[in-house]
């Protein structure tokens, strides 16, 4: 079990999809399909929907908040996001979604070294206290 800092509170369960490279959601994720569409990204083609998505850091366009909002609105969002470094941009899409009555997505700041203790593809549980653990 590892523990990070809660950015957006909530609980979630899903398979861990750990990205080895940072990603810009704008230009990098298709919100309708919920997939990674940047052909230069090592996880090109992967679906992020329903995953516990671990990202070393968000990069690139500030429009990524809007893509996050559309993911929530389309129902294609990850179940939870683990961010290597706190970043207002993705969290903001979730905060705005809550103002508009959409579902929330828990976001936890979890340094990359701790992300790496989790097994790629394993079912992980994100707790309301920022804990992230493997197992059913």
């Amino acid at each position, binding site marked *: 079990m590892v523990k990070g800092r809660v950015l957006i509170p909530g609980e979630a369960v899903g398979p861990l999809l750990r990205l080895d490279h940072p990603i*810009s959601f*704008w230009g990098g994720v298709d919100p309708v399909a919920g997939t990674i569409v940047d*052909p230069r990204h090592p996880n090109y083609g992967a679906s992020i929907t329903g995953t516990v998505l671990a990202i070393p850091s968000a990069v690139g366009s500030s*429009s990524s908040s809007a893509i996050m909002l559309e993911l929530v609105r389309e129902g294609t969002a990850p179940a939870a996001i683990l961010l290597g470094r706190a970043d*207002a941009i993705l969290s903001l899409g979730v905060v705005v979604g809550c103002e508009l009555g959409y579902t929330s997505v828990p976001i936890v700041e979890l340094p990359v070294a701790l992300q790496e203790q989790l097994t790629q593809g394993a079912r992980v549980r994100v707790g309301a206290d920022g804990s992230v653990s493997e197992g059913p």
Partner: protein
Amino acid sequence: MPLNLTQPERDMLAGTHGDATSMAMRIVVATADLLGAESLVEVVSAHIDGCLHHGDGGVEFAEKLVRGGGRVAVPTTLNVGALDLLHPEKIRTTPHNTDMARRQMQAYVQMGAEATFTCAPYQVGHEPGLGQQVAWGESNAIAFVNSVLGARTERYGDFLDACCAITGRAPLYGLHCAENRVAQVIVDASAVPPMLKERDVFYPVLGTWLGLQVGQDIAAIVGLPKTVTRDQLKALGAAAASTGAVALFHVVGVTPEAPTLEAVTGGADLPRVAVSAAGIRNSLARLSTAASDDQVDAIAVGSPHFSLQEFDSLLELLGDRRLRVPFYVCTARGTLHSLEQRGDAARLIRAGVEIIADTCVVVTPILPAKGGVLMTNSGKFAHYGPSNTGYEVLYGSLEDCVESSVHGRVMRNEQVWSW
């Protein structure tokens, strides 16, 4: 530490100034909390990136603010939308998306923002001064306003930029604070051949390299000539903000916070990275995804939006020749207006240039649907082109772009890269 709010800020939160201000303040406060800010800072201007239609959630948000009586509290410019409102026929999209994109752009104008629709507001008169606190969205504009103008903004995304504009406040955090604006790494460009450093084509490549190299750290770049232009710095920042999360860089002897190296390092002993021939060649290669040099189907320049100076270069390079490969130039309506007054817009259109205002070719469908190879002089177009347009990309100078279009085949001056 809990967030400290002033009485006027608490009033805004409580709804004294209406529903929109209250919602905007809730979002500013939620963000301040998650960033760990202890208070808010008053801003003197805002640049809103939120008028670009990515989906209907953005329209819902903007129209909710309008219905709640939302008005911007500080001078505010608008980033590109998904439509060229001056030439709507140039966008290939569905009636639904056209309608929603137009509603989203108009909602922000209704809130009192200036209808600039440009990713380079600093080219149409929005130039806050050294040390001023602002709230800007759009990654290239953020890098420019922090680095080249020396005003202070964090990286604001869609929605928060609008909320800051409406409340006139931003979380006091990150790059708003002087102590967080000092350099973390020294980038040494002294080994780069002086001839290369004079060329515009070098700067998007340097920016691409910088973003990959430093991620979101603040670099103090030494070894660039004092003659480096605003357009070169614009291109550098835009590319660095595409491959990294660069929101601030200093060019020693050039940018306002870096009269000397000591001024931006505080005398600290920082790691030093040299710009090498291999590093530049790798970044240059990364800006082209097309398999070969034997095809070009469209050319696009103007990301960030073309400046008047860049139009001057284009006019000079073009002379009285005609373009054969479709050639798109993206710019601000304000810049287009100046160009029209000089009579140069008509001249360019006669030569075959497609001038796009209010938007650009990587944020909305403008390029011919058949796809193919897009040539560009922009690090940002080269970075986002493949995923956003489906085109493969080829990177070259503005001169390469013009010559390739005039001759109908790829012409690139590789000589400039000999190092």
